[in-house]
């Protein structure tokens, strides 16, 4: 028995849809969301969204008239466009899981100029900025209402 949260057919459709949502790009030198490592992360991360994702995939299969993954590329795009309009909250959950995993991939983060690391313990640098911008506000009279 499979320990994965989705059936093989559901997983194939999800991977095909992820590739339509975020395709690989030579311009930005990034993989698509259907990349093997990213998709493995997606499958591991469904967690409390599993039921919604399965509902969304059932809707997708219905729109496709069968397996979405078996459609030709042009037809996939058409069906995905309809699905995007009609998917509702279950699609929102599916979309969220795909994005959560895609934008924490090292290759994607580096392409965005980000360091692939946890925020702690290194943190980030935020400039103090030009505090003289506050000078006009400092010159204002008190604005708060006196009560006595």
């Amino acid at each position: 028995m499979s320990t994965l949260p989705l059936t093989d057919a559901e997983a194939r459709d999800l991977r095909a849809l992820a590739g339509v949502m975020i395709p690989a790009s030579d311009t930005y030198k990034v993989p698509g969301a259907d990349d093997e490592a990213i998709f493995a992360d997606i499958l591991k991360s469904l967690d409390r969204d599993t039921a919604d994702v399965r509902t969304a995939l059932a809707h997708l299969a219905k729109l496709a008239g069968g397996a979405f993954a078996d459609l030709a590329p042009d037809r996939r795009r058409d069906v995905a466009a309809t699905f995007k309009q009609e998917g509702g909250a279950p699609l929102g959950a599916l979309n969220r899981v795909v994005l959560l995993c895609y934008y924490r991939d090292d290759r994607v983060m580096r392409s965005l100029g980000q360091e692939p690391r946890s925020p702690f313990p290194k943190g980030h640098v935020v400039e103090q900025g030009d505090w003289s911008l506050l000078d006009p506000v400092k010159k204002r009279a008190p604005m708060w209402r006196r009560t006595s």
Partner: protein
Amino acid sequence: MNDKVDVLIIGSGASGAAVAYSLADTKMRILCLEQGDWVKPTDYPTNGRDWEARLFADFAINPNRRARETDYPINNGTSPVQVVNFNGVGGSTIMYTAHYPRLHPSDFRVRTLDGVADDWPVDYETLEPFFAENDRMMGVSGLAGDPAYPLHHPPMPPLPLGKSGQAFGRALNKLGWHWWPSDSAIATTEYDGRAACINLGHCTPGCAQGAKASTDITYWPAAIRAGVELRTRACVREITVDADGLATGAIYYDADGKEHFQPAEMVIVACNGIGTPRLMLNSQSGKFPNGIANSSGLVGKNLMFHPFALTYGYVDEPLDGNKGPPLNLWSQEFYETDLARGFVRGYTLQLHRGTGSIVEAIASTAAGRLPWGEDHHKVYRRLLGHRLGMSTITEDLPEEHNRVTLDPVLKDSHGIPAPRIHYTMGENTRKMMDHGIARSKDILAAAGATDIGGEAPILNGGWHLMGTARMGTDPARSVVNEWGRCHDVKNLFIVDGSIWVTSGGVNPTSTIQALALYIADSIKKHLGDGTLFE
């Protein structure tokens, strides 16, 4: 049976911690029951690469989504605003932005000044020393001299302006409107054993650095050193009373589901605006068939939320994104009443730093701004790190039909009825929100932002929970008196946001804690002159 204590506090969050600390110097035996756990700094999301993902899982702000074993479910009904909170040592200070304004003097006098709602039985001047003590205990950063407030002196310098703050500053100066560095419960220098902020990013789901002040690392260590006992995984079902109608203690469940009775000389409730009325309504007896201390019928009523409106746009210049605490500035330009605006009272604009990369992608996809397909990458790179956003915190006026009741069906894991929320936004609040959105768009236009978006009210925006056991001098129109003691039960006190008479238009934690310190001080004075239970 457990040994009797002098003081039993229920809830270890913002107010429970403050009152425990203040009462500790009486040397009474004080016990606090907390239904959640201690949260370890190593558990906070910013320790890991999955920090944004956990905002949608075990550190989600909505307890129904988070669904930890220590959370209770909430039936939000048809409310346009859903309750968000956290259950654990520190309560919702674990999971807040640490934006830390005080109420203004006018907030305590809305009936006198504006002819709506009721005046509070306390005022700003009375609370001022307790604000200062609380700022010192929590460790507040900020800048003295804000013309929107009476002069006060935050103990640490303000958070950095950053790129986002400068963009806001230039825009608001162009309009001639007020803005100021926020009072923030975030250490900007080493402070009382806490390290300074290193800009980990979004502070809401807990600070791994310990720079954000949550009461588990501020009040509680001091209270425990002074002898207060804090018992975790103790989920209180009801407060019990004797034949004279005095509180005798509380019944709670431990982590194994075993029922206990904890006797006490006096009980202090600190479960905030939803948890407190839930507990009181569930504390039914022959003496109090409609819930303890509820002869006025007002327990659970007058729920106030501060409905939030989010408005944002995108500028060409790079901003701070998720780097740094998410809130570091406010504008109080529209805080005090101006009837020419078409509503009474007013609102704060809190100015945001930015979002993380994943939250930006999710929000922009949901808004239809970020496409699927080939253009996804190009559009995303134009959005990420360029968002300038702000939220309008509207003053919500008390209305009795906005209320918390016990759900007849939904229960927590111990079988305790869940709270059910009945809430609609009032007309004044709606007009105020529309005004705030319009002014937010003015600010974005002045900053050169395009692609304006927003959410109003923010669905998961019920951070501020107030009014459900209001204070007052008239027992027919309030639940507690002017120093937090229940009119009906002379040894039962409430110290959290539920005692607020009106909501103001600012984040409430600072004032909740100042009130808790004031009530603790009042308890000590009455203890001293022998009038505590008279």
